[in-house]
């Protein structure tokens, strides 16, 4: 059984996702050990711009130049700065076809693995594992399950998920692809909010449909909660490959921050500019031992 960790990255004019993916790959490699390869799925343009770095951090690179329709997203860098830029996140539904592995762990390029819990996914009996429970490192969001809408279905976070080559996973990704191509229809059907195409939404809808459109439980990853740092937070310091100190936006006054340390604990750092500011430290800590 081959096992691979897959990270997607496509640069835009605002963010160098390839660099972030390299840092993220480095952290995965330093903290997990039971996989065969770390693989990047990217487009030709991104690969050309960062080929040397990519080859340093990844064992395998898959190029997919599928057309990405315009998907403009608001990027926040704490409360200081806001920017709109294209968000190229539409190839995720192709991962089933593109993955050369029997078992695949997909992680976002801003998800930093800092302990070995995700090594427990390998050889699971479950065809797909994904989390709906999450925690906000700043404690702003009290509920730990988010819904697509108050009258809709629970949201599953496509930030990290596991699948093995199986009928269930194949059907799931077929549905995700179908939803992606008919997003407007499903968007209204499930009372979605915002204009952005979100993989989280597409995954949640597909899981709902695949489970017979009734209440359902999808096996969660071995981690209990996805540990989210939203884009109002910032990085204070990178200590090591398993140790980061964050500025967490104060729940009552988001422009103020509280320091908190994350040691041996994964963090999904959504403030891309913060990652960019600390990219050298992140890359050094993720270098191959």
């Amino acid at each position: 059984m081959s096992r691979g960790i897959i990270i997607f990255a496509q640069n835009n004019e605002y963010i160098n996702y390839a660099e972030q993916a390299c840092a993220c790959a480095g952290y995965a490699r330093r903290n997990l050990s039971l996989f065969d390869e770390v693989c990047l799925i990217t487009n030709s343009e991104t690969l050309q711009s960062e080929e040397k770095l990519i080859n340093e951090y990844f064992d395998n690179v898959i190029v997919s130049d599928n057309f990405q329709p315009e998907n403009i997203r608001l990027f926040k860098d704490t409360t200081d700065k806001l920017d709109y830029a294209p968000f190229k996140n539409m190839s995720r539904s192709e991962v089933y076809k593109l993955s050369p592995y029997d078992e695949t762990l997909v992680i976002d390029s801003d998800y930093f693995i800092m302990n070995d819990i995700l090594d427990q996914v390998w050889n699971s009996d479950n065809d797909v594992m994904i989390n709906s429970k999450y925690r906000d490192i700043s404690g702003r969001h009290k509920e730990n399950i988010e819904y697509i809408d108050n009258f809709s279905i629970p949201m599953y976070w496509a930030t990290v998920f596991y699948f093995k080559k199986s009928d269930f996973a194949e059907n799931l990704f077929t549905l995700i692809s179908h939803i992606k191509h008919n997003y407007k229809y499903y968007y209204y059907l499930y009372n979605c909010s915002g204009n952005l195409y979100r993989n989280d939404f597409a995954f949640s809808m597909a899981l709902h449909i695949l489970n017979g459109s009734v209440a359902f439980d999808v096996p969660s990853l071995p981690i209990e909660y996805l540990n989210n740092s939203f884009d109002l937070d910032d990085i204070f310091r990178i200590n090591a490959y398993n140790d980061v100190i964050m500025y967490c936006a104060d729940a009552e006054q988001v422009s103020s921050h509280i320091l908190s340390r994350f040691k041996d604990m994964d963090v999904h750092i959504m403030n891309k500019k913060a990652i960019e500011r600390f990219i050298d430290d992140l890359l050094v800590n993720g270098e191959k031992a």
Partner: protein
Amino acid sequence: MADTSKETEIEASKEDLQRLEKALDFSNTMKTFNLNKNNLKVKTQNLLSHSTAGGSFTVDQSLISFMNFVVSSGKTEITLLDKNDIPVHIEDTEKFLDDVSSLYFEVVNDYYNEYQKLKSSRKIEKVLEI
């Protein structure tokens, strides 16, 4: 007479202000303490996971107690529901009990040490080793 009582009132409210400042300062410390404590708690919850035979288990006191009962009843293999309510067959109950209890002690002990560190200092710089 009326003037004197006014002065006393002003004097008192200055003290109140100082006390209030102190309380608000303390509230900031508590805010930091609580956030860091919650993050330690979440870390502990995430680390208390054990996977075997294709299933994942949340390791807690009730799993350990149940397994202790299973082992002391002489059962060497059993089927258990994992955290996703999937039945998983455990072939060696004694080893499973050993694994989950070791993990529990190790993770909770780390939590205790980090919590003591957090509790013992009001200075966040010291706790976070900044």
